[in-house]
């Protein structure tokens, strides 16, 4: 018998691997959501909790895109198509958060308007 696998056998192994990856990811996502819920009630430094929450949220976000949305199995062009919008959106959020800081905004002008 040769060591080479037939295409259908390779496909079947690939699908089985994906299935296990999906189950592991679903369990991890559920566990992370539970951790997030507990985390906000813990008496720890606010900055630490904030950083951990952002990190966990990003992990969930990237995991769903990479595995559930098949982006790691797909072509780079699709990553670029989505990534462009995502980068612009993230940049907009960050820029606006910095530009519209409380110390820069003229509240008197807003109320006069």
């Amino acid at each position, binding site marked *: 018998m040769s060591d080479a696998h037939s295409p259908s056998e390779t496909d079947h192994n690939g699908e089985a691997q994906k299935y296990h990856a999906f189950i592991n990811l679903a369990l991890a996502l559920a566990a992370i959501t539970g951790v997030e819920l507990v985390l906000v009630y813990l008496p720890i430094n606010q900055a630490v909790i904030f950083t951990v929450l952002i990190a966990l949220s990003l992990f969930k976000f990237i995991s769903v895109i990479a595995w559930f*949305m098949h982006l790691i199995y797909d072509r780079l062009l*699709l990553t670029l198509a989505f990534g462009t919008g995502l980068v612009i959106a993230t940049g907009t959020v960050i820029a*606006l958060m910095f530009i519209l800081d409380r110390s820069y905004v003229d509240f008197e002008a807003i109320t006069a308007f």
Partner: protein
Amino acid sequence: MSDDAHNNDDGHHSLMVNNKKLLMWLFLGSDCMFFGTMISTHLIYRKLYPESYDPTSLFSLELTSFSTFILLMSSFLMALAVSAMHKGDIKSFRRNTIGVIFFGLIFLGCQVYEFTEFVHAGLTLSSGTFGSTFYMLTGTHGVHVAIGVFWLICMYFYSFTGKMDAHQSAVDVEIAGLYWHFVDIVWIIIFTAIYLIEFI
């Protein structure tokens, strides 16, 4: 028939990427910008007027975490539905799709319950900047979920017509799946940025 022409008939362009799939990814990229602006609007108003409203007494983190869990599990089932369609297993596709629809409806039910509670507590669309931006953001997301549920219901019933084949329909199911997963990732951000951060 040349290879290029054949590829075009098959829904691919010269880069060997399915046109429908590429369009969906581009749409999702643009939808990212749409939600990005709404999330930043909410956060900016929270930053500028932190004293205007304290939602911690109103938000039920347990309910929102449950909604998040439900949506994440629906994403898992959606991934299985797409995988089943690629294998040509229509029965498994239907089983998983019904699961996604069911979870989607639970999520919408939770959101309707939450909104009703908030309105009874005095938080309305016109009660201030917090109400306006909160309902606009979560409401728009809810509309996206409702569209996704409707899309999947149509797909579920279409699978009984006998017109679905593993090769052509797998791409259509995958596109519906992409949309559903996107709705999920937007909620992941909303859950952290709008709900959890209020409690720290």
